[in-house]
């Protein structure tokens, strides 16, 4: 785990609260606005940032995040600019972990070794690459771990107990539990099942478990935060950003709209009722 990631989750544990993980697409709707949104996230209450690397063919994403990627690409965004965004962000913030999230092809074309070196140098903490299951670990996961980056894996309702160990084997940083089968932005999760799902994963790992897919409101964030180590919000946040745009372009309200929404989510996360810390320490 990178020092930043480790410190952040240790801190959350001390505060006995779940973290808020916010997703934005790099370069959406343009590089300058996206960089301003990124800078505003920690102050608004984001504990970890997932920064989407735009791709033309995001097979696991719903219409909202697809549209965000296309806006970014249309505005001339590319992978090297995502890395530059992180580098700039790190000049003012050396505490908030950043996880790059996307699909393998742009990384593969950039060159795995070059990408890992540049990402590490820029101040990236981890990677989530949707189309790299454990079966393809030697592509990027193993080299990323060797380079000192976290490789964060998605576990889903289809990941049964027999498969979980394989999924968790090379996972580091945290586990991202996708609470519904589907694409990003799809159905609202069944909150009653979040607790048991998190417990199921925790039986197999000591890593923090972040839960996402379908969290749209401060109340929803609070529901998930009662059971998970972190709550991931993506589509709802991009929806807020998208609604602030005028013909696909940023307006003076864009950054504030996102900031306000994230502040609400952060309040939701912090309001969650959680068992006393001792109750969570039942592992030897």
């Amino acid at each position, binding site marked *: 785990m990178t020092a930043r990631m480790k410190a952040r989750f240790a801190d959350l544990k001390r505060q006995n609260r779940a973290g808020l993980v916010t997703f934005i697409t790099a370069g959406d709707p343009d590089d300058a606005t996206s960089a301003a949104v990124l800078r505003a996230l920690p102050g608004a209450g984001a504990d970890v940032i997932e920064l989407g690397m735009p*791709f*033309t*063919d*995001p*097979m*696991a994403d*719903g*219409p909202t995040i*697809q549209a965000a990627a*296309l806006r970014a*690409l249309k505005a001339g965004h*590319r*992978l*090297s600019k995502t890395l530059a965004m992180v580098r700039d962000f790190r000049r003012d913030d050396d505490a908030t972990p950043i996880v790059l999230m996307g*699909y*393998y*092809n*742009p*990384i*593969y*074309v*950039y060159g795995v070794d070059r990408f890992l070196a540049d990402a590490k140098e820029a101040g990236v903490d981890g990677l989530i690459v*949707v*189309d*790299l*299951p*454990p*079966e*393809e670990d030697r592509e990027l996961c193993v080299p990323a771990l060797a380079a000192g980056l976290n490789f964060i*894996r*998605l*576990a*889903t*309702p*289809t*990941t*049964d107990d027999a*498969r979980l160990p394989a*999924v968790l084997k090379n996972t580091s940083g945290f586990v991202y539990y*996708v609470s519904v*089968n*589907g*694409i990003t932005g*799809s159905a609202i999760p069944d909150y009653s099942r979040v607790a048991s799902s998190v417990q199921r994963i925790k039986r197999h790992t000591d890593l923090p478990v972040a839960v996402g897919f379908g969290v749209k409101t401060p109340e929803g964030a609070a529901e998930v935060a009662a059971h998970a180590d972190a709550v991931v919000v993506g589509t709802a946040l991009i929806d807020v950003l998208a609604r602030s745009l005028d013909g696909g372009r940023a307006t003076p309200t864009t950054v504030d709209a996102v900031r306000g929404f994230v502040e609400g989510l952060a309040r939701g996360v912090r309001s969650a009722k959680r068992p006393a810390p001792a109750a969570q320490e039942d592992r030897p």
Partner: protein
Amino acid sequence: MNKPDLPNSFRNGPDERGHFGNYGGRFVAETLMPLILELEKAYEAAKADPAFAAEIASLHTHYVGRPSPLYFAERLTEHCGGAKIYFKRDELNHTGAHKINNVLGQILLAMRMGKTRIIAETGAGQHGVATATACARFGLPCVVYMGAVDVERQKPNVFRMKMLGAEVVPVQSGARTLKDAMNEALRDWVTNVDDTFYCIGTAAGPHPYPAMVRDFQSIIGTEVRTQMQAAEGRLPDSLVACIGGGSNAIGLFHPFLDDAGIEIFGVEAAGHGLDTKAHAASLAGGKPGVLHGNRTYLLMDDDGQIEEGHSISAGLDYPGIGPEHAWLKDMGRVNYLSATDAGALDAFQLCCRLEGIIPALEPAHALAAVLELAPKRPRDHLMVMNMCGRGDKDIFTVADHLGGM
């Protein structure tokens, strides 16, 4: 000892991880991974079950009309003045193309797996029609994803699918063509994992699809072996097939890959020309990358963003190609050529007038290559071209290009 440059056999792929050399693999979201492993297991079991093969064989005979004829194209041969040209007549299959060979295999497998809902992507609509047909035959609900642009330009096939009871979903995302239809089908699958079987139309996608689709299509080449022995007392000297994703081509080629003397030609769509941006020749104009579950040659920019393919033929304008073709190219076993829109249109007209066969625009690309290759070969050279689809669906496109005829 040095590592040999070439494998002992070209027919042993993929390896247990679904790789053909550097290509193929299983690049899918975690949600789909258990399904793909389950599919692989089910397919291996079906392959080992003689009842599965018998069921397919019976449908081939009574429903599809196999074996499709191997036809000596006498007037085209005279016209070219070289090789003896044969057509493998897969356009005579029920539904008018080779696609049904694969679909029946996959639908039977889906039923063995207890799946109750079928989804498919389609470009030109031939795979969609074949899937809708098989679903009607077996009483399964069927959803076909089709790019909104393709829905417009392939209307007859949209009507066919609807008449067969399928739901056709026009895909509005991305460039609204085949690759976006495939994205949308994958999104459906990831959402409906419990009951849904994804019937992929070409020899691409995550393992085991490329191998499975190839196996179902290999009936084409297997029949050619027998039929050419019967007609000429020996095997052919060359094989020619068009390539979009490459399922008809791999189906013809695969049974012959280890017959070293046989020249094999795959023909990609060169659209307006390989020197323009408007083509769909992933091997000639692309680079290795990862899309739709496999590593293969892709049309993309230097940032790894996927570009649109262009071809007059909606069935060929996919920006990728099946991974086994990517490997066969690198191995040098298959020669990959290309034909332009204009070349395909010329070949289309020639075939209509000389042979009384209206070819689909897809095999018209293969025919354009035959017109180049055949004259340069001796009269005892036996050349087989896969006539993988009939052209009824294309007559309006052709009429548009030829100014209404």
